């Protein structure tokens, strides 16, 4: 009798233990699920926060510091003679008021999309120099002035010839 009772009690205890184990497992699963949700939420919010900070930094950089960036000049450029002069104020170079120094002239022989840029430098260089002196004087204007000069010269010679002839006559 006692043995039977003990067995029954043991069975009940086993059943209870199994139920408890099941509940424990369910709780653990729920916890795991909660943890995963939390991780995803934290990840998303921190990513958004980082993007936000990044974008705001770029805006601030663009708006406030864009004109005072300390980037280096690319290696392709070299200091021109005029720039070198700035280091030594005791020997300033004689330069025109408007300097347009072109250092990186490329070859003009190969016709490629890149190389066709070179000649335009020459145009601008010439126009800058000319603009200071010429005031849009072209060769036909110079030619007309030459004609005027020659006409004046001829008139003068005619007057001189007359004077000379008169003087010869008097003598």
């Amino acid at each position, binding site marked *: 009798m006692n043995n039977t009772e003990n067995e029954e009690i043991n069975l009940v205890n086993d059943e209870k233990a199994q139920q408890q184990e099941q509940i424990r497992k369910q709780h653990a699963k729920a916890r795991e699920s909660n943890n995963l949700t939390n991780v995803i939420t934290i990840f998303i919010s921190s990513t958004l926060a980082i993007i936000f900070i990044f974008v705001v930094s770029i805006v601030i950089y663009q708006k406030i510091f864009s004109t005072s960036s300390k980037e280096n000049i690319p290696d392709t*450029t070299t200091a021109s003679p005029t720039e070198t002069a700035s280091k030594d104020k005791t020997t300033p170079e004689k330069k025109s008021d408007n300097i347009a120094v072109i250092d990186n002239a490329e070859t003009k022989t190969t016709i490629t999309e890149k190389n066709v840029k070179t*000649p*335009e430098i020459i*145009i601008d260089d010439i126009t800058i120099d000319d603009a200071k002196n*010429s005031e849009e*004087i072209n060769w036909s204007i110079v030619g007309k002035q030459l004609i005027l000069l020659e006409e004046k010269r001829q008139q*003068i010679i005619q007057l001189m010839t007359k004077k*000379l002839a008169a003087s010869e006559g008097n003598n």
Partner: protein
Amino acid sequence: MLCVIYIISLSVNAANDVFVNGKYANKKTYRNKENKTTRLEISNAEALEITIIGHTEKNYDFLTIYDSNQIQIRHYSGLITDKFTVEGECIRIHFKSDAATVDEGVKVEIKAISLFHRIKTDLHQAINAMMQQGTGDIYFKINQLVDEFIVVETQLSQENTLLSGELGEKAAEQAAKIAEIYRNIAIQGHAIKASHTAQFEVLDALQHKTKTKINRLKGKQLKNKQLLEDSNLELENPNLPMIIQKLQISIDVTKKAIKALEKQEIAWKNFYRAQLQLIEITHDYSEKINFLLYFLNENSQLYELAAKNISLNEIELMTLNETLIDLDKLKSIVADIEASESEMAIQLLKIDETYITP
């Protein structure tokens, strides 16, 4: 949150199209030891028109401009006023001041222009450079001599101002001055020729750009025609009604695109032909300028000889007008040059009136 990010991103993409410092940035001057690099950009621009004004301490503070390939295209110091165009959608500006003395500052502005407009602008610049190269100083010197001659003419028309003996001396002096001017003009021959050669290279390069554009348009047309063919073939296969509708829309759009590209090609081809004519006229013009320089060089020697002869014998004055420069020939050369300049101006006007259909 995403909306905020989007709006902020839009403001980041906004083009920065002006660089200012000193008085242009509402300050009195720029600062000493400034070392700024700024990128100016207009998205999707074929070319940029750059306008620069300002003043920096001459020879010590510098403004340098680089193109989109990081190639230095301009370097300024002192008084700056310039306007030019570059290809691409961006430029880089570097402003550097030394440790002492500042000035008012600079302003650099960019404006998007089309490749078509840029080629037109460059054509104008090349032609103007060719017409004006070597004229400034010469014109000033000729004017001075004309003024001197007017004074002498007035003196001669008065009684007893110049007497026999003085006349020969004066005539010799004038002949020597003319000889000098003609020689000065002729001396510039090499520089003028070199400048003309440079401008011809520019014109050739612009023509090449035009040709490249035409080829690109042709390529686009071919691509669209292939697309049209594919869509038509696809339409012949049994398809769902929705897919058939989509294909028909695609065919319509492609046909319109091909028409638009054909119109553009025609306009660019007209532009190309106008450039060819202009180049032909400029070569002719260059020859005429060379001939004028040759003519003046020959006559400078004649004047030198005349000056010596009159100095030796005043009576030589009597035959001087027959032996010196052939004025009719000079007039004819100048008229030829003027005709070429008019032709160039007309051709440029034709080019200006060429337009690209949208």
